[in-house]
């Protein structure tokens, strides 16, 4: 059935984190949290189970976007993608994140969609989520029993499913401060400019001169969740990034991914091109030209 009319739901407007948590505890899986709403409002036309929408509109303190050279970047639950693009700190210290925000959806959606919403969506094609995955991130979740922190490495469980419990509110995300020599980049492939990724990759390299001392390499659209590529990360760690190494990495990527055929591309194509994309994103991170 197609629809033009949103379903009935109760719009709940808590005025504090505590009130929001109480509402989530009451309604559990019959409630959805509204921050940017770019996914939720579409879902509301078809999802019969969402009876209550807990809006964060009036909850103070969730729009923090703060960089600290020791603690890193704090991103509150209401920070939008557009907010990232206004931050010179994000641009300077987290190029991967900035690059992913720059191509994220469309200007209208960037103005509304939140960074944390993108992570909670648990899409295997998420752009900002992927960049943050490569950079590393810790989520703070809170429910009636208190707060807990979850590493992004442990957060995505399967397609659309996360470690967040129904009664938990995601308060913020902390991205670690970059050490000297950290380089990162994000790249994606799409059918047209304004599109979901059909393949995306992000890297965060710790460089000591020519040597890479550690790496986080993440890819999207190649499995049910965003994934990291441990073999590639190990190949990079402790190595000088030579054209030969890049070619080896490019040839290795296919063995670490498990893409499927879908409307945006084919498994066959993704297997062929993923290595090229990873090679290019590494070169981009090392500022060796942003194209090949």
């Amino acid at each position, binding site marked *: *059935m*197609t629809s*033009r009319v949103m379903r009935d739901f109760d719009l709940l407007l808590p005025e504090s984190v505590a009130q929001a948590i109480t509402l989530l505890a009451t309604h559990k899986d019959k409630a959805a949290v509204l921050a940017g709403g770019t996914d939720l409002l579409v879902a509301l036309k078809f999802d019969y189970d969402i009876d209550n929408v807990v809006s964060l509109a009036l909850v103070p303190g969730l729009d923090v976007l703060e960089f600290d050279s020791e603690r890193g970047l704090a991103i509150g639950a209401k920070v939008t993608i557009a907010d990232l693009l206004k931050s010179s700190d994000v641009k300077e210290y987290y190029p991967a994140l900035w690059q992913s925000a720059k191509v994220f959806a469309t200007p209208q959606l960037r103005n509304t969609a939140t960074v944390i919403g993108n992570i909670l969506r648990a899409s295997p094609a998420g752009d900002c989520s992927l960049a943050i995955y490569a950079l590393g991130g810790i989520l703070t979740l809170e429910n009636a029993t208190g707060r807990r922190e979850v590493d992004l490495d442990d957060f995505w469980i399967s397609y659309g499913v996360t470690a967040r419990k129904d009664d938990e509110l995601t308060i913020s995300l902390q991205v670690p401060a970059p050490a000297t020599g950290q380089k990162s980049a994000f790249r994606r492939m799409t059918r*047209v*400019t304004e599109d979901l990724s059909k393949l995306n990759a992000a890297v965060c390299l710790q460089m000591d001169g020519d040597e890479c001392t550690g790496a986080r390499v993440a890819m999207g659209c190649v499995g049910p969740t965003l994934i990291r590529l441990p073999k590639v990360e190990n190949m990079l760690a402790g190595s000088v990034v030579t054209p030969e190494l890049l070619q080896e990495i490019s040839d290795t990527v296919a063995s670490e991914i498990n893409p499927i055929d879908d*409307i945006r591309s084919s498994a066959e194509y993704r297997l062929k*091109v993923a290595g090229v*994309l990873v090679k290019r994103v590494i070169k981009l991170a090392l500022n060796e030209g942003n194209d*090949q």
Partner: protein
Amino acid sequence: MGELKVVGKKVERVDVRSKVTGGALYAADVQLAGMLYGKIVRCYDHAHARVTSLDLSEAVKCKGVIKVLGPKDVTQKEYNASVLDMMVSADMRGVLGDIDDQSIFTDHVKHYGDAIAAVIATSEEAAERAAEKIKATYEELPVYLTADDAKQPDALQFRPEKPGNLAFQLPEMAFPNNAYAWGEVDDSFAEADIIVEDSFYVSKQKQCQMEPGSYIALYDDQKRLNCWTSTQMPKLVQKKLANLYELPMTRVKIHTTVIGGGFGARLGMVLEPETCALAMAVPGRPVKLLSPREEDWLTSPSRHPGKYWMKMGFKKDGTPVACDAKFENYKGAYYVDASGTAFTTGAWLGGMYKFDSLRYRGESYYTNQSICGAFRGYGNPQTNFVMEQMVDRGCAQLGADPIEWRKKWHKTIGDDGWCIGVPYNSCALDECLDRAAEAISWTEKRVKYKNQTGVKRRGIGVAVMNHTSGAMPMLLEHTVCDVLLHQDATATINLACSDMGQGSHTTLRQVAAETLDFPYDDIHIATGDTDAAGFDIGAHASRTLYVGGGAVKQACEDVRRQLFDRAALELEEDASNLYMEDKIIHVKGASNKSISVQTIADQGVNNFMNPETGELIGQPGQIQGYASFFPPHNAPPFGATIAEVEVDTETGEVKVIELVNAHDVGRAIHPGVVEGQLDGGAQQGLGMALTEETYFDEKGICLNNSFTDYKMFGPSDMPKMTNILVENPDPTGPFGAKGVGEAGIVPPVGATANAIFNAIGVQILEAPITPEKILKALEEKNNA
């Protein structure tokens, strides 16, 4: 022709203010007292099935529900939403074999989204909620998605009168051996030194007009059926609805609302029959039906996809000796436009090059896809994708420059046009090719891009096209225009031509102003009311300016003649000795003898007797102009596009760097409007070449009937683009104008494909040319 005052100027478009301020009233904006809302229940479980049970009982009980309608609760008459049958003579109708095979609601679902029932309720929400309660069970039937599927001997037959599921082939009676042909193709191939041959696939592109289908219908207290719709063809839809509901035309009224884009998606009827069926069930209450985008996608027609085979033969010196082609299109679930596109796809092929002999066969097969019909270009983009790639393959083997070859062998004045027996009467294609080549440095780049070895490779390609201004002589071409001269000497032009957003009401107003020699601001174009307007075929086939403009010009000339006749009486001079300047009619060589148009117009309306003499002051009677216009020709527009692309050989991605479109437009009545058509056409042409396709899974479920996964070129995907307007006035067009509505979409398709061929040395035979296909083709080439 003297100096033009309004024609050729970028005057303010008539619709621009209302559209940018949101004031324009689309059908969805129209609110009527007591309005009810409809929701059509569609089958989204299967693409081919029989409805074995339909339970409406729960829906009837829902809050706000007025009526729930199943297949038996509406007219049982079958119909054909296309209007092609109304554009040909009764004899021809029989020859073409159009049939009525659609019903309002069906118990035999033939495509994903076919309609099975409907709800009428007091709100859209109530209608949607009740529609969810309608329960249907189905018996699944085998799904046929391609012509090859549908023509299997044991395939279920869609219609008994169309054996083999062959909805249409060129009829023997009009086309011997079911082919559009000249010469002896087999003999000609024997003379060829080089033969190229391949089988292509052309895709199911969607118009993606911005406004989804929105309708209101009301069966009123005068027993008149009213329908508010943004149709491209108000007068034919009026007649079609009159036929379907067995009413005289006086009892059917179409209220045309502002059209949010057409491109063929509103050619003929779309959901007007269903909306009217709902209204007939609740006499006296207006019923509104709004399609969500996903539904509009499945119910309005798409471009005809299908398998397109072509073979060309050349002599060593480049002479094109033979062309043989066959297009088997996947028609979709119903007959609509099965005949038209199957023919024209070959007509555009036949109209392009001077082959000694040519044979084209066109066949339409029923399939369990959503319907196909009119879409900007009407078969021409499909032909361009195939024909132009084959020509370039031939040129590559001949060692010929693709532009020089085209200049030498394209058809021109005196050659048979797209319709055999109707020769071209104007053609400026050589100038288009020369100017486009110069603008993009063709010669230089063709040399530069030879033997590239890098990851990213540039390529440059050309394509040409012929099209038409109106469908004469294949289809009826006729527009009626009335001009009412008001007593203040301004004029209202009344005609049924729709403006789909292409700017035709602006250009028609320019034609009127120029012909009357009135200021642009003194003219109003009145449309939208089928009670008031005379006949018009509708907006299709790039005809509105050419035929509608012809009608406007003739009707305005009628007004002018009447003005001069009356001035002649008043001034006691021969009409031939008069001239008009600034709306004052003067006697040549006697500057003191004159009368204003204002005086004539006013005296015509406010006609009084001189009480002293008892004589009438001035000539009585309001002046009205009239034309019932049949154009003498089809003023073929020609065009050339050169595309430059960059192909990433590691990923298969294509970046379109530049596009130069040079078009023989006859005369640009409004250069901005013409450029708008070429820009928009190029956007759709690039999409057809590179990204646009409707996908179905093996069960016939449509996978991308929305913008989430159907990808058009957006603003940031568009290349640098230059439009060159070659103005070579056509002898039959109003002020020399030709139609440009469709031309722009056509050559970007072939030019882009040829640029890719130039870059990587491989041709991609299936549209759209995706990175996935390019990478595979490159691998095959490397492995070969």
